[in-house]
C-alpha cells in the first residue's frame, strides 16, 4: 500500500486563486511605487482607495454573475443590455419619488430574472451555445432599447442616489454590497447542491448526467442569477447617473470586460473550475491598473493595450499550469540507471 504514496501531493502547488491574489499584491505594490515616484502622489490616500473600490463595484456585480454562467460552461453576452434596461425601468418607475424605490428595484430585478430564465431555457432546452443564445437575446433587448428610447429617461430620487455616493470611511456602500453578494454566491457554490451540480455540469455534462444529476436546472439558475446581477449593476449605474440610460451598459463594454475579469480570476472559460473569490481578485486587478493609469494620466488607448496584455499573459500562465499530459510510464531517471 505504501507503493501508492501520493506522488502528486508531496509537492504543494499554489492554487490559482492564490496566484490571482499574489498578482493583485504585486500590481498594488508596483502601482504604489509608480504613483509615488512618477506622479508624486500617495496611492494609499483615502480618496484614491475610494476611487479604486468604486471602480470595482459595477464590474464586480457583472463579473459575479458571469462567473456562475462560465462555471456552467456557458457565457452571457446580454448583460450590458440587461443593465441598461434595468436602469431605465427603475428610473422610470421611481420617477423621482422616494416611495417608488422598492417598486423600481423590484421591477428591474424581475425583468432581469425573466431575461436570464429565457437565456437559460434557450441554452439548456434548445441546446443553443450560450455565446449565441445570449448574443441573440442581448440584441433583442438592444433593439427594444434603441427603438423606444432616444436618450436618458426617468429619474431616481436622492435617497437612491446615496447608494452610489456614500460610504463607510473610504469604502463605498456599493462596494460593500457587491462584496457581500460575492460572499453569498461563494457560499452557495460551496454549500448547495445546485452549486455542486453547476461545477459538475460545466466540467463534464455527461459525467454529471450519468451520476444522476439533472443537467438543466443549475445552468438555468446560473443564467437567471447572471441577469439579476446585471440588473443590479444597472440599478447601481442609475443611482450614480440619477437617470436611466439605454447605453450605460454597452458603453462600459461590460460584457467582454466581465468575461475577462472572470478568466483573469482563474476560472476556466470551458467551465467546471474556478470561483467567485478569484473573480473578485481579477476585478480588483483591473481596478488597480485602471486607477494607476488614470492617476498617471496615461493615454486612454494605452490603457486598453495594458488591459489586453494583462489578460493574455494571465491566461497563458494558467494554461501552462493546466495542460495535463498523459502520465509517463517511464521516467527519464529510471532509464539512466
Amino acid at each position, binding site marked *: 500500500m505504501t507503493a*501508492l504514496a501520493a506522488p502528486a*501531493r508531496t509537492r504543494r502547488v499554489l492554487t490559482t486563486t492564490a496566484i490571482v491574489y499574489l498578482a493583485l499584491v504585486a500590481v498594488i505594490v508596483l502601482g504604489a511605487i509608480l504613483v509615488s515616484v512618477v506622479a508624486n502622489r500617495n496611492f494609499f490616500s483615502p480618496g484614491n482607495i475610494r476611487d479604486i473600490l468604486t471602480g470595482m463595484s459595477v464590474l464586480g456585480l457583472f463579473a459575479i454573475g458571469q462567473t456562475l454562467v462560465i462555471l456552467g460552461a456557458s457565457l452571457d453576452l446580454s448583460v450590458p443590455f440587461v443593465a441598461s434596461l434595468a436602469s431605465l425601468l427603475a428610473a422610470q418607475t421611481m420617477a423621482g419619488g422616494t416611495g417608488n424605490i422598492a417598486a423600481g428595484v423590484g421591477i428591474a430585478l424581475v425583468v432581469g430574472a425573466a431575461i436570464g430564465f429565457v437565456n437559460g431555457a434557450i441554452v439548456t432546452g434548445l441546446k443553443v451555445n450560450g455565446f449565441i443564445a445570449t448574443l441573440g437575446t442581448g440584441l433583442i433587448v438592444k433593439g427594444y432599447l434603441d427603438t423606444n428610447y432616444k436618450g436618458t429617461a426617468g429619474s431616481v430620487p436622492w435617497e437612491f442616489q446615496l447608494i452610489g455616493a456614500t460610504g463607510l470611511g473610504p469604502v463605498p456602500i456599493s462596494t460593500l454590497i457587491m462584496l457581500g453578494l460575492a460572499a453569498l454566491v461563494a457560499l452557495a457554490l460551496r*454549500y448547495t447542491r445546485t452549486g455542486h451540480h453547476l*461545477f459538475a455540469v460545466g466540467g463534464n455534462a455527461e459525467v454529471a448526467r*450519468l*451520476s444522476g*444529476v439533472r443537467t438543466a436546472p443549475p445552468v438555468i439558475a446560473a443564467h437567471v442569477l447572471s441577469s439579476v446581477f446585471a440588473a443590479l449593476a444597472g440599478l447601481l449605474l442609475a443611482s450614480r447617473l440619477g437617470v436611466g440610460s439605454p447605453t450605460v451598459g454597452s458603453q462600459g463594454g461590460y460584457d467582454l470586460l466581465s468575461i475577462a475579469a472572470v478568466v483573469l480570476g482563474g476560472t476556466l472559460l470551458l467551465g467546471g473550475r474556478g470561483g467567485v473569490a478569484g473573480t473578485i481578485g481579477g476585478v480588483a486587478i483591473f481596478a488597480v491598473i485602471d486607477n494607476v493609469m488614470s492617476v498617471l494620466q496615461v493615454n486612454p488607448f494605452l490603457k486598453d493595450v495594458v488591459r489586453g496584455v494583462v489578460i493574455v499573459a494571465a491566461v497563458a500562465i494558467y494554461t501552462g499550469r493546466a495542460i495535463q499530459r498523459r502520465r509517463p*510510464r*517511464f521516467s527519464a531517471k529510471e*532509464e539512466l540507471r
Partner: protein
Amino acid sequence: MSAPVLVARGVGKSFLGVSVLRDIDLELHPGKVHGLVGENGAGKSTFMKILAGVYSRDTGTVSLEGREVDFGHPVQAMRAGLATVFQEFNLLPERNVAENVYLGREPRKGPIVDRRGMVRATRELLDGLGIDTIDPLTRVGSLTVAEQQIVEIVKALSFDARVISMDEPTAALADHEVELLSSIIRKLKERGVAILYVSHRLAEVFALCDDITVLKDGALVSTGPAAELTPDELVRRMVGRPLTTFFPEKEEGTALGDVRFAVRDGGNDYVSGIDLEIRAGEIVGIAGLQGSGRTELVEAAFGVEPFTRGTVEVDGRRLRLGNPRRAVREGIALVTEDRKAHGLALAQPVLDNALLVIRGVFPGRTRAARHEVPGILSSLEVSARGGLAQEVRYLSGGNQQKVVLAKWLATRPRVVLLDEPTRGIDVGAKVAVYRLMRRLAKDGVAQVMVSSELPELIGMADRILVLRDGRIAGEAPAGATEETLLALAAGTVSDGTVDDGTVSDGTVAEAIR
C-alpha cells in the same frame, strides 16, 4: 453455494440488425469474483453495459436478488445495488474525491450540503478498504489512474452496491497497482460483494476469479468454476476460430530490401527499450493489450511524442524526428487509430482531405497531387455519392478510412505506420486496406501495423512484435498462433522470441503458477 445475487438468462443484443450478443447465461454469487473473458469484439463490454443500464437488452432476463430488473439508466442500476467501473472513468478531475463520490446525491442538513459529513463518509469508505493514502479533499485530477479507480470503487460502495462489475480494471495499471487492486477486490469479497471482472490478463483472472465465463463472437462458450479450467484450455476456448483465407496473398515480386526504418533502444515517457528494424517491403505487426503502449510506439516513431532516448534511422540516415511535420518530410505516414478525431477534417470535402498533408507540408506539389488524387481514390474504390466535393462526415467508416489512406498515399511515403487500420470498417473495406498494404509492400514501403485483432496481424504481418507495459515483450514469426501472442501480451510466458510459433503445452500454465 449461496443463492446467486444476479442471474442473467438468454441475454441478447443487436445493433442495426447485427447480432453482437446471443443467449448469454451467467450467475453472480455473493462474495465471488466472476471472470468474463474473450477476445476483442467477443461482446464482453456490451454485456456489461446491458447490466449497467447503458444499453437495453433485446432478449432475455436479468434478475437482481430475485427480482427481474431492466435498467434504463446507470444511476437506476447503481441505486438498485449494481455498480459498474467503466474503463473510461466517470469522474470530474476538477472536483475533490468526496464531491465525486457523492455527486448527484450530496448529503444535506436542511438546504445546506453537509460537506463535513460527506468527507467523513468518504474517509470511512476508504478506511474500510484499507486505503489511507487518498485524502477525500484531494482533487481527483491529481490522483494516479489506480487511485482514480479506487475512487470509482468507493463511489460504488457508497451506493451500497452488492454487485460491482469492472471493465478491464488493470489495463492502465502498473504491477504494484495491480496488487493493490487485487487486495481491494479480496476485501470486497469478504464483505459479500459479487464482482464481475472483465480482463485480458489471464494470470490475473486465474488468481482472482472463482468462476469464469468465456465469450466468443457474441456467444457463450462456457461458464463454470475456474478450478475446472486450465490456462491452456481457457485460451483455446477464447480463440478457437478457424483462420479464413480472408487475407490476400503477397503480390508477386514482393521482396525484402534494406532496412528502411530503424529505432535503436528508443524510449520516451510511455515506451522504453524499443529496438525495431523494418525492411523495405516488410509488414511488421504490433500486438499487445490495451494500454500496452502500441499507439504510443507509433506516435513516438511519427514524432507526436518523440523518442527522447535512443536513435532513429530512415534509410540508414540518423534523424531526429521531433515533430510530425519533420516525420512527414522524411516520408513517414501515420494512419491514426481515431480517424474522426485525428485523421480527417470531417466538414471538408473528400478532395481537400486527400490534399491535407500535401498542402500543409509540400505546398509546391499541390497542383501535381490534385491530378493524382482522383486516381488514388478510385484505386482504393472510394465510393462517395457527391464525388470529390462530398463532405467526408457523410461517408461510411470504410470510405472515410480510404480517404485517410489516400491522403497519405499522395505524399508517396516510404514508411507507413498503421494504427488499427481496419477498426470499425466493413469487411469489403478491410480487404481493400489489406490489398493496399500488399501493394505498398511490393513497392518497397516499410509498414507497421498495430492491431487488436490477432487474426489480422497473423494474416498480414511478416513478423509480430508483442508489447507489454511499454516494452517489447517478445517477437513471433508470421505463422504464430493467437495463443502465443495472447500469452506474450498477457504476460503468462516469460519474455523472449518464440521460435516455432507455438508455446509447448504447459508453458502457459507454469508461468501462471
